[in-house]
């Protein structure tokens, strides 16, 4: 069952309109070329719309809605390849909301709602974010002083973040370490080269970073955060699928070869229909997962629904991007063809929190 409220429908319309206006494809290319870590004017507009506070409780200056309510916003952003720190900030806020102490919430949530940038650091150089596989440790000396040592990769928007939440092991237990970015040594944060050029991704080198007790959060919400990340990235992918399909259909309806529109060839038409079906299925799985996220209390059901959505989106979006290149012939091989922007986005998203093979492996254990 999918449920979708009037409020969500309104948010969907507003978000679509906003993203279309702010992020036409030319603007996406300008953002890539400029290479700026942040478009401050755009960011402030989003903050003014209240988007950064959607999930933050009212007492901390937000709207107090469910994470699922942000799905239409992320979908609209994905449709236009609009990449801002909203993904990072929203996830970081979830960590604070679920695992933060009252003091930590008081200190950070109002700031995040007001536009200070927060991010999460989970994945490590070995390609894993699984608590059983990570090597970043929170160590304690004989005198009780704590230090954080290890390294993270694919930390979104760390270059402009005010606060970074790092997953780490203290003994066998998972913790979140709350780092004030301004306290990190020079050079600890380095920009990475990633396949999706709209993303600002960073590595984090952590050696003996002193940590106070008030910077440590329990890590019990880790699974929830992982799933939240999947849900939001799936929303972006669902939008992206719609975007790349529009690029494909546009070309199939204008390019002629052998005196016919290439869209009249079934070698093009039928795979285009497969992409349409993949897009429709992804969107359905997305809003199903959003419904389950909000309404369901059984963790296993939530996990299955979100993984199914991420699985479907990863497979379908990357396939659509791949075909999108092929369908453009020689032009598809160029930087100028918009299909590459979507393919690169698809590849980035596919591997965040696990591609379709990863998801099927997890689902296999959950389902039977």
């Amino acid at each position, binding site marked *: 069952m999918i449920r979708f409220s009037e409020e969500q429908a309104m948010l969907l319309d507003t978000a679509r309109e906003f993203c279309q206006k702010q992020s036409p494809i030319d603007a996406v290319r300008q953002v890539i070329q400029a290479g700026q870590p942040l478009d401050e004017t755009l960011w402030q507009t989003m903050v003014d719309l209240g988007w950064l506070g959607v999930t933050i409780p009212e007492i901390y200056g937000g709207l107090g809605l469910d994470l699922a309510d942000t799905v239409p916003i992320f979908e609209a952003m994905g449709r236009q390849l609009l990449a801002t720190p909203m993904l990072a900030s929203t996830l970081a806020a979830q960590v604070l909301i679920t695992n933060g102490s009252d003091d930590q919430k008081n200190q950070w949530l109002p700031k995040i709602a007001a536009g200070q940038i927060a991010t999460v650091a989970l994945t490590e150089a070995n390609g894993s974010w699984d608590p059983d596989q990570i090597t970043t440790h929170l160590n304690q000396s004989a005198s009780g002083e704590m230090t954080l040592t290890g390294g993270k990769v694919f930390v979104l928007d760390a270059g402009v973040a005010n606060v970074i939440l790092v997953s780490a092991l203290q003994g066998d237990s998972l913790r979140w370490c709350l780092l004030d970015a301004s306290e990190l040594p020079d050079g600890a944060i380095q920009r990475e080269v990633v396949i999706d050029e709209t993303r600002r991704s960073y590595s984090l080198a952590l050696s003996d970073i002193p940590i106070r007790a008030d910077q440590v959060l329990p890590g019990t919400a880790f699974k929830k955060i992982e799933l939240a990340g999947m849900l939001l990235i799936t929303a972006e992918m669902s939008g992206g699928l719609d975007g790349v399909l529009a690029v494909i259909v546009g070309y199939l309806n204008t390019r002629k070869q052998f005196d016919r529109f290439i*869209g*009249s060839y079934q070698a093009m038409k039928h795979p285009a229909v497969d992409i349409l079906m993949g897009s*429709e*299925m992804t969107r359905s799985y997305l809003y*199903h997962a959003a419904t389950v996220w909000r309404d369901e209390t059984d963790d296993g059901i939530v996990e299955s629904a979100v993984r199914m959505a991420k699985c479907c989106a990863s497979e379908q979006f990357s396939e659509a991007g791949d075909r999108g290149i092929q369908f453009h012939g020689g032009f598809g091989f160029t930087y100028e063809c918009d299909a590459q922007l979507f393919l690169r986005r698809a590849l980035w998203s596919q591997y965040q929190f696990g591609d379709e093979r990863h998801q*099927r492996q997890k689902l296999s254990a959950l*389902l*039977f």
Partner: protein
Amino acid sequence: MNENEIGEFRSGVRAWLQDNKPAAPSFLLPETFMEVGTDQQFEFLRRWQQKVYEAGYLGMSWPEAYGGGGQPQIMQEIVNQEMAAQRVPFVPNTIGLNWAGPLILDMGTEADKQRYIKNILSAEDIWCQGFSEPDHGSDLGNAQVRAVKDGDEYVINGSKIWTSLGSYAKYMILIARTSNEVPNKYAGLSFFLAPMTAHGIAPTPIKKLTGEYGFCQTYFTDARIPADCMLGNEGEGWSVAMKTLMFERGAVGGQAGGLSMMDLNINDIVELARRATRNGRPAIEDPLTRDELVKLVLEAKGNAVMGSRARIPALGGTYPTAVAMSGKLRSSELKRKMTRFAVSLQGANGARYISEDALDGGKWQRSYLNSFSGTIGGGTTQIQKNILGERVLGLPKS
């Protein structure tokens, strides 16, 4: 209806189905209305339809004046859902209930409605469809069976093929060529509600790939049918046929309901994976098999959530007709994949066929072979993709 009333109604339906579901017969039942091959099968299914109708669970939203229930459509939908859930047999008169019936209610005369509707519901009159011809299947617009007007009759000559239920039908929805002197092939077609009892109409059974019988070739030799059998005007047959296909593919509502095929649920396949053995071990223990099974579950579940989303207009998206127009394509392809996979779950024993030695008597092998009825009948998968590409995505004609 409010939630409470719906819940109450649903449990009433469920209880009735549980009490009245016929015991499994000693012979194999067909899996869809396109595969009814023996009198025994036919009689069993017709009796079931009669019973369902008498209980008030068919044509619930059709007008009372013609034998329907005059109730909201949602009630029929609930009944359909419960029928699938309770695994009851399908009702055989699908062509009447779901295509010809809604068509007659939509554009037939008062006399047509009085004459046909009630007996469609009660299975008194079985209907068949005479669209495909030996040389013109997908290219339906090229149909060449001739209908020549002679006084107050039309004289029909030629043959139709793949006529499901042809041997049992009393009426046929027939598309035939009434003129060649027209600007294009479509304009020469007309649509008839033809009595199969007319002299000169001979349905002849054809053996299917499963080895059983199921459909017919229907020969017309100077068959005379009354001129008032025509639905719509002369030369409008194509648009009436297109309307029929909209009902047939479920793209528009108005159907009398009831199942038209045995429900196959993905859970059946999961359950089979536990029972069937590959290389001496339960299939479900094999990691590669598990991965294939997850893929199928994802496709099945994906189809279900698509249906759920389609009911929310605000989530229609860029292509709001895509889900409704692809229902037939998706469900028939899924069924083909599921049954094919079901055979593979049996490893070496997948090579068996209907016999005592085969798992479940060979029903999965038969199911797989029968699954092509869905991917070919009613417009092939390839034709569905053309339609979706052209009408939903707006791509140029092939």
